[in-house]
């Protein structure tokens, strides 16, 4: 795993190829859009998706916590797919989550999918969090500076010599950054979509997630993503 160093509003950050941000100065690990219990949310309505998404997402989060040993973990909202999500956690997944939360400052930034987080999952819920030059919130604001957010599940697509490749990505213009979704069943929105591109300054960079490193592409190199 090779993390990519970037600077955001003067703060030096490390981007992890799994889709997380680490801010060494504060021992802070930020992840976005876990969408825990998305599978069971669909199952409730009769679409019986495999019930393994929460476990898969928490396993990924566990690997990140072991790698960076953060003092503080910030989940940038939509951590649960719906407000009933925490109540549907299976016993094993509940234990997995508790083990991660224990012994560190765990912050649930609330999102549109999870406006409330019950106290029994641990950690504390906040609307947003400002630390030095950076503000962590769920959905980007058009006037913000030094902002780290999620919500959009950014994806990008490039044309390589053999074929088009698309995948999850970070996107940043040096002033703000949108994180990719970490959740196992979460899809994505193309960064060239006005909803994302409109937030950024003209020149922005997408960091595509590779298996163990990131690949940076300037806006002009990106294609509209297929599916």
């Amino acid at each position, binding site marked *: 795993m090779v993390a990519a160093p970037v600077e955001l509003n003067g703060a030096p950050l490390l981007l992890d190829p799994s889709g997380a941000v680490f801010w060494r100065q504060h021992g802070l690990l930020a992840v976005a859009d876990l969408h825990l219990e998305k599978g069971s949310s669909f199952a409730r309505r009769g679409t019986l998706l495999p019930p393994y998404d929460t476990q898969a997402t928490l396993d990924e989060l566990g690997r990140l916590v072991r790698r960076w040993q953060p003092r503080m973990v910030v989940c940038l909202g939509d951590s649960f797919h719906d407000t009933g999500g925490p109540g549907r956690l299976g016993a094993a997944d509940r234990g997995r989550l508790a083990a991660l939360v224990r012994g560190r400052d765990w912050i649930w930034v609330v999102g549109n999918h999870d406006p409330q987080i019950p106290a029994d999952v641990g950690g504390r819920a906040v609307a947003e969090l400002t630390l030095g030059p950076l503000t962590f919130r769920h959905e980007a604001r058009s006037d913000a500076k030094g902002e780290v957010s999620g919500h959009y599940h950014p994806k990008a697509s490039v044309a390589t010599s053999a074929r088009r490749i698309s995948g999850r990505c970070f996107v940043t213009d040096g002033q703000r950054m949108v994180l990719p979704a970490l959740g196992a069943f979460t899809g994505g929105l193309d960064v060239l979509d006005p909803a994302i591109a409109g937030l950024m300054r003209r020149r922005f960079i997408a960091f*595509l997630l590779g298996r163990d490193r990131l690949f940076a592409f300037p806006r002009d190199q990106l294609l509209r993503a297929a599916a």
Partner: protein
Amino acid sequence: MEPLMRALGTGLPPAFQSWFTGRGWTPHPHQLALIEAAAAGDSALLIAPTGGGKTLAGFLPSLIALAAAPADGLHTLYVSPLKALAVDIQRNLQAPIDELGLPVTVETRTGDTPAARRARQRRRPPHMLMTTPESLALMLSYPDAEAMFRRLSAVIVDELHALAGTKRGDLLALGLARLARLAPGSRRVGLSATVAHPDALARWIGAGTGRVRQVGGGGAMAADVSILIPPDRLPWAGHMAVHAMPAVYRAIATAGTTIVFVNTRAQAEIVFQELWRLNDDNLAIALHHGSLAVEQRRRVEAAMAAGRLRAVVATSSLDLGIDWAAVDLVIQVGAPKGASRLVQRVGRSNHRLDRPSRAILVPANRFEVLECQAALDAVAAGTLDGQPPRPGGLDVLAQHVLGTACAAPFHPDALFAEVAATQPYADLPRAAFDDVVRFVENGGYALGGYEQWRRLEPAGDGRLQLVHPSIARRYRMNVGTIVEATTLKVRVGRGRALGEVEEYFALGLTPGDTFLFAGQMLRFERIREMAVEASRGGGDQPKIPAYAGGRMPLTTHLADRVRAMLACPASWDALPAPVHEWLDLQRGRSVLPGPDDLLVETFPRGRLHYLVAYCFEGRNAHQTLGMLLTRRMERAGLKPLGFVATDYVVGTWSLEPVADPAPLFDEDMLGDDLEEWMAESTLLKRTFRNVAVIAGLIERRHPGQEKTGRQVTFNADLIYDVLRRHEPDHVLLRATRADAAEGLTDVRRLGQMLARARGRILHRPLVRISPLAVPVLLEIGREGVEGARDALLEELAASLVAEMETGPDHPHPPD
């Protein structure tokens, strides 16, 4: 029943006899044979070439029975793979019914039938109903299915050869089993083109009923098939046969009406464009393929039927369906890929049985000449491609189980007995059936978390029932086994749609790009509201829309014939001189493999080392082999850079030479290597998506909302990844692997080839490229290397860095 049997037992009744006479016809022996079979209450399989009153033969016993004893209720159900065919047959049948004054009502029921009429048809069905496999499944899912089908006497399945062995066929077989339960004693009639395995087809149509009679419709005259080689040029590679178009045009000009069959929609567009470029006489030449708008296709078909066209360029979209007696020439551009398909295509010409069909094959390159000659030999010898019937899909079974529950609670034991009586599911283990039922019930996951969200629940008497009627509504919105790729409509300006292209192609276009579609040169403007907006006109380098799954691999049967031809120089005299010389040259420079050998050539070229294996197993199997070979070469430190797979060969290139290829081709590559590759492969993801949709895990349509195919695609990939990691043996993953083994990865065929090649690998290390390998190298660069995602990203990222470091392009020199 009794009076009907008596009516049929006396053969053709006088009124029918005089109807035939009045038209100047004599009943065909096979028509009488079907009346006899029906009189005995037997099912029947009629195998006959197109023409010759095959469809009428199917309906005659029902018409006779209804004439003798008018009855209320649905008497005969006709199932065809094409909606258009159902409509057409209804029209054709109306003629004898009117002229004989029979008290028989005939209606169609397809996805296009208005809802009010569909509801009325369930309450008061006509005597004869023309439908499709999907509409039958839908009818069977209603609680009143039993009332509707109780009095059914006969089921006629048309174009059976095109249904058996496919997922639509599986769905139909299961539906027929249900019908046999609802209407015991009903008989079946299968109508089929000539096939290699008539016994398997007879088992398919007769499964679960009484006896089946096989009836032959009399052979067609031997076809007059020739190969067209323009004297001036025979290309080494390529698939478009543009070089031959002047000769094709001359053939069209001298014939009455011609169908020009091609293998892919891209070929159809190019051939159509080239023919019009040459069309100084302004002949009426039309285009027909599956991506064109339906109205457009109907217009072409109508013009064809009315004799207003001189030629139509068509893909498999015209393989089935409406018979045009007036076609007197069939031209096949590109190799036919299979003997059976060629026979059926050739049969489209001249439906009068007293004259031979005339057909011309137009190979696009040298390997295709071999294939065309092999196909010609096969037609002459009357041999066909024989795929032994494959087992039915578990995804289709899951759909059927839910559909059954939608109609009424069911007992698993009884349903298993019913399912196991069909031909596709005859060997289905009970355990697999139970897994499918569990999947329908609650997802069937080992981690049993979904008990509270189950779809089926015990009814108390051992039967299972739906937990809520809304499940039936959703089932009915999603019935069927045809999973479409995501497509975008193509419009000129904001006008009527010309047809559809795949999203993938549309997203690769930038404004100003020109592309060839529906026979027109179009300039891409923008994508708006799931439609491509284009304007007419364009530049000189048009792109051709690419379509997934358009190509069908070379059949085993033709492959065997090509191998035999290579091994027997005496047979080369039948080949055109350039091909004969090419093979002679190969014999001098390298070697030609025996029929059971696997020839592997290795040679250096530039700074690269090439390996070419002449397997002749079809492009799907070769694609899989290419992936597995390059993985092994990677591990052996040979630094492979890529591979190419055609229908005939697989070729690889690497930085280091392969000294001994035998270990690379060891059969054990089908173990872990295959597993590992399959897990990552987009082929598997695509297959899983189809399986998940058919099985009902992912719905195409929700009440109140139509999911776009785009959402389905990304969901399915993510679900696949998670399910594979956490429950690799889930029933849907088993269904996916089974599908892939037969289809896109063709592992079954690859396995047979590796087993045959054991100890028979003929390695020829050469100092330079062999004549046989030349066409292969010309293909290089057309195939992408799957898998190396990160390597490709790295290469692109590095090239951008290099670009930045060398600065921008040189400024334009002054004019």
